[in-house]
Structure formats: C-alpha cells, structure tokens
C-alpha cells in the first residue's frame, strides 16, 4: 500500500487543502501529544498545545522548505510551545531535586514492586529527570531522531546532544540506584 508522503501533504496544506491537514493530524497527533505531555505533564494543556502546533503547521506550511523531516519540524514547533507554557508557569519548572523529592516514595508498595520489576522501576525513573533530560531521551528513543535532528529540534550543537544524552542516561542510573537497583554503570 502506498501512502502520501508528509512533504506532499505539506504542499497540499500550503494550498489550503483541509483534508491533507486531517491526514497529517491523524498521522502525527498522538506522538506530538505525547512529546508535549512529557514536557508539560498536564493532559489538558497538552491537548490545547497540539491544536496550537497543528494550527502553526497550517499557517506556515507554505514556508516549509523541506530541510528537515516534517515530523522533526513539528516537534520543534511543539517544543517551543511547551517551553513557552512552562515559562508562563514558573511553578511548574521544577528542578531535578524537587521533582525527585516529590516522586520519591521510598516505602511506597509500588516502589517495592518496582524494585522487583526492573522495567517498571526504569519507567518510573524516566519521569523523574529534568525536562531537558526527559525531552532528549524521548527524542532519541521514542521519536527516533538522529543526532542531527535532535540538535535541530533542541537548538544545540550535535556534540552537546551526545553529551546531554549521556548525562540524562547517567541520571537514570543514579535514580535507579536510589531505588536499590545498581546497573553497574556508570
């Protein structure tokens, strides 16, 4: 089966084709939503943001030059919008220590179970790092973005993308260690 490429859809959207917008939305909205939700941690805000992201796509489709994949372009817009919301609500800009403290339920039965299930523990720890570390882990592992693409989305050099990912992973190991799971790295 053949599907219309994202680039072709963007061309049609630039010409005001509403149906092409529906196809693009259906294809990408879940991933964009999840990316935003992991940053803003609020479902209603994330829903509001994705309609804003796709409205920007509708408005700016004619300016899309195809220098990056359409999904990469959309994630850049989504990130910008999510960070704008976070800046407006400084109370949500939690630093790593605070976030860790809030979610650190040492004697929680869930945590006890998590210790037995390394996968569940890892998932729990994936929610704890800073927004900066969460976004880079998601972009690399879930959104399958290359070093170059992550650099484009986050707006940092490629070398920084690699080291930031390394430190995000190191943080994960530390968080797991706090839960009693020593991965033997770093």
């Amino acid at each position, binding site marked *: 089966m053949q599907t219309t490429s994202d680039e072709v859809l963007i061309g049609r959207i630039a010409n*005001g084709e509403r149906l092409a917008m529906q196809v693009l939305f259906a294809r990408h909205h879940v991933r964009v*939503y999840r990316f935003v939700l992991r940053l803003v941690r609020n*479902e209603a805000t994330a829903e509001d943001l994705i309609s804003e992201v796709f409205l920007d796509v509708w408005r700016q489709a004619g300016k899309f030059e195809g220098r990056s994949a359409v999904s990469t372009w959309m994630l850049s817009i989504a990130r910008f919008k999510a960070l704008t919301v976070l800046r407006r609500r400084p109370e949500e800009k939690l630093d790593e220590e605070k976030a860790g403290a809030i979610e650190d339920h040492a004697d929680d039965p869930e945590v006890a179970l998590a210790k037995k299930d390394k996968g569940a523990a890892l998932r729990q720890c994936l929610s704890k790092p800073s927004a900066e570390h969460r976004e880079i882990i998601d972009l690399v592992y879930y959104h399958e973005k290359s070093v170059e693409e992550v650099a484009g989305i986050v707006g940092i050099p490629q070398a920084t993308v690699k080291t930031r990912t390394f430190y995000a992973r190191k943080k994960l190991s530390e968080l797991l260690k706090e839960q009693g799971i020593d991965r033997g790295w770093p």
Partner: protein
Amino acid sequence: MTTVNERERSDIELLLPWHAAGTLDHRDTQRVEAALANDPELARHYELVREELAQTIHLNETLGAPSARAMEALFAKIDAEPARRPAMSINLGARIGEFFANLSPRTLAWSASAAALAILLQAGLIAGIMLKEKSPGGYETASAPTSVAGEGAYALIRFQPQANAADISNFLETNKLSIAGGPSAGGLYRVRTAATKLPKTDLARIVKTLQEDKVVGFIAITE
C-alpha cells in the same frame, strides 16, 4: 592521558543510544558494531541502552492519546482562518514530486515504457517525413549536403507523444520548418527555423510562437 583507542571508545559509547534506535548512518553503525564485537564491557553497556529504549517506548505508549477535543479545536480555528489562495508556484517541485509519488511503481514502469515506445514510433514517423523532404526527385547521393554547416537558425524540439505523422508534417509545413537532425536522447530533434542566421531576439520570438502549437512538447533555441 587518554589514548586514541580510549577516545574512540568514548565516542562510540556516546553513539550507543542512536545505534539501539537504528538512527545512525552506515559508517557509524559499522564503527559501533565492530566495537561491540570486540569489547564485552561495551556490549554489556549496550544492553542497558536497549533496556532504556524498550522502557521509554513502553512509557510513551502508555501515555494514551488526546481526546477528539484537540482535533475539533484545531479545525474550528482553521475554519476561522481567512481563505487561502493556492500557491502553485511555491510548490512546483512538490507538485512534480506528488505526481510521481501518486503513481504506483508499476504505473511508473508502464508510463516509462509507453513514453519510450511513443518516442520510438514517432522517430519512425519523422524519419518518413525527413525522407520525403530530402528526396523530392527520388534520388540523392549519399555525400550531397542538404545544408551548409553553420547556416540558418535552429531550435531543439520534442513533439507531444500523441502527435501523429500528419500533425507533425502539417506543423513543419505551416511554419516552414525542416528537420535537420535527431532524435537525440529524450526524443529531441534539431529543427531549422530559418535559412539564414537570425538575431537571438527574433529566434526567441519564433520559438515562443511555435511553443504554442499543440504538437510541441518542448522547444528551445540551439546553435
């Protein structure tokens, strides 16, 4: 002091997440695979990366999806936007891409074969026209020149694949043109538009007029 090998190992260690996600280029993939094959500690580390990859996907997949409210809000906003005029010129490349993208590989193969066959058949028809033009008396020596080299004004032309011999013959006759060469690659013919050399502006004007004829697929000035 770090050795080259240590630096190389550190570089490769940084690439492991992308290797696990399958987003490295061919060269880096080979570098990482070679290192993993020879370094058990790096291979153990890679297993940790794979765990992270699996759990990140698991976590994201459990986040659910937005409600229909998001789509309704979006299209309500789109409907409230001012109507947009199609921007054909902006996306010419995209439109050409779209045309080919919309053809299935089989259709494309058939289209290419049909176009090649049409050019071949047309070449036969035009060869017939050229023979008629060249031999009004039915005999000509092989060495007899039909025109002096460098004389006249010329254009390169490709006829529409659906143009038949009568159409082409009529077009050449009406516009007092004669075929001087071809077909070259892509079914192009060299056509003499005037017996003497013309100023470029005059030739451009002639070419522009000829371009409007239905049998012409492509036309351009040539020496």
